[in-house]
């Protein structure tokens, strides 16, 4: 479904990504895990075609989008929704207009159909009745739900999440993770970038650990726990500790 082959990226003379090769299967929840500044969000922007890699290929459903013009990326991009780290909601619009944005700009639905679709999505993300509220009046957790609702508005096959639980309290974090799981159960492929180990372990089918722009290891949680790589062992240190406590 998503295939990154030897992708490298430099920005302002600094290496952001170095020879990243990654494969994500249809329907899975893939986690890209790593410390802040490791290049995780850059991978999402490259998958979405917002950034172009300097070298390497980016295949989305078999089509290489690296180096093709913006116009040709659009049909591929319309299969992907994204939830930005800081939500990137349009703050001059209310909840309904944010969620309806894509539909109004690009779909052939009439306004009545769009309203119905928005109501259905808002109900799914548990935000019924918030249609007319401006997004800056919402709490952090609610904003994240609106961002997820906006990403779901056009039924994308792939949803990209950039640090979906960062800055949220544990209860809101859990409800957002539950929501991501529900979205995945509807058949969407999910790619989640996070530095929060618990999130990664609780919902990830596969984990890819990156550091300093390089892919360190890809595998399941079990693969990570059995890893010989020192960085992976350091990153999963908490889990080893918990396991040791559990044994005691």
């Amino acid at each position, binding site marked *: 479904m998503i295939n990154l082959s030897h992708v490298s990226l430099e920005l302002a003379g600094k290496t952001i990504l170095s020879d990243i090769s990654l494969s994500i299967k249809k329907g899975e929840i893939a986690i890209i895990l790593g410390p802040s500044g490791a290049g995780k969000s850059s991978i999402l922007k490259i998958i979405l075609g917002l950034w172009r890699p300097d070298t390497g290929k980016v295949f989305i459903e078999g089509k290489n989008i690296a180096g093709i013009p913006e116009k040709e990326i659009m049909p591929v991009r319309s299969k992907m929704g994204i939830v930005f780290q800081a939500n*990137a909601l349009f703050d001059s619009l209310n909840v309904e207009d944010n969620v309806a944005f*894509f539909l109004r700009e690009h779909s052939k639905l009439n306004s009545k159909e769009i309203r119905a679709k928005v109501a259905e999505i808002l109900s799914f993300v548990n935000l019924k009745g918030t249609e007319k509220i401006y997004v800056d009046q919402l709490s952090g957790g609610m904003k994240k739900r609106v961002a997820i609702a906006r990403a779901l508005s056009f039924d994308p096959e792939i949803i990209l999440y950039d640090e979906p639980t960062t800055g949220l309290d544990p209860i809101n974090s859990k409800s957002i993770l539950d929501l991501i799981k529900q979205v995945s159960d509807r058949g969407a492929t999910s790619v989640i970038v996070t530095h929060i180990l618990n999130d990664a372990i609780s919902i990830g089918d596969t984990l890819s650990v990156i550091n300093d722009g390089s892919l360190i290891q890809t595998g399941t949680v079990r693969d990570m726990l059995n890893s010989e790589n020192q960085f992976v062992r350091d990153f999963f240190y908490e889990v080893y500790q918990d396991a040791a406590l559990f044994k005691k």
Partner: protein
Amino acid sequence: MTGIAHSFKLKIYGLQEYTLMLVDLFKGLSTFWKTWADAVNEMYWIGARAFMPVLLGGIFVGIILALETGHQLDHFGAKTLVGRTVSLGMIRELGPVITGLLLAARTGAKNASELGAMQISEQIDALRAFGTSPIQKLVIPRTIAALVMFLPLTAIADISGILSGMIVSKLSLSIDTSFFWHSALSSLLMKDIFVGFIKPFFFAFFISTISCYYGFSTRGGTVALGKTTINAVVYSSLIVLVLDFIFTKVVWELL
């Protein structure tokens, strides 16, 4: 030396990015009607809300022009020429320039700070991610709104300047209103009005596009936003003065 070379390289790169933005803008003009509602909204903010500053700017420039020239011309017994000086000065030069500078500050700061904040909060990336061109959605409506609104605003500055000049000439210099009007209208040529009214279109285009470019180029946080807003206002104001010089020296002399 390396620092100067790097700075020069960045300026050239910036010019290239600005030119590419203009190319996209011209390409997108064929479908500008899609963003007509946004353009009307911008017309309100850029145009209608700028009415009062432009009116006041015109009034005070007209008063100062009438007083300063009136006192000087009085030494030569030619104070009846005040009307001519005020009308020519306002229509050909000061009306468009004062409006241009006020709008460079107002519209320039508005565009750069709005688009810069959208850039920082990833809203521009979100537009692109949802298949919408930021040029089409944000730059074209602002530029069309500026092109439509700058001319009437300039006319307001011209008229208010001439009327305030007339009132102050009557009250302070004891120049009869009919003398003032006769002098003001008889000296005006068609090419004066043409040059005075063509300037706002060029000012509008460059103020709008330069400030939008600086908004898009914002990288980092609030400090960067402050810097790009300053740059937008400074370069928009400078382009007003440069264009005014070009129109006065080249275009008016060619006509």
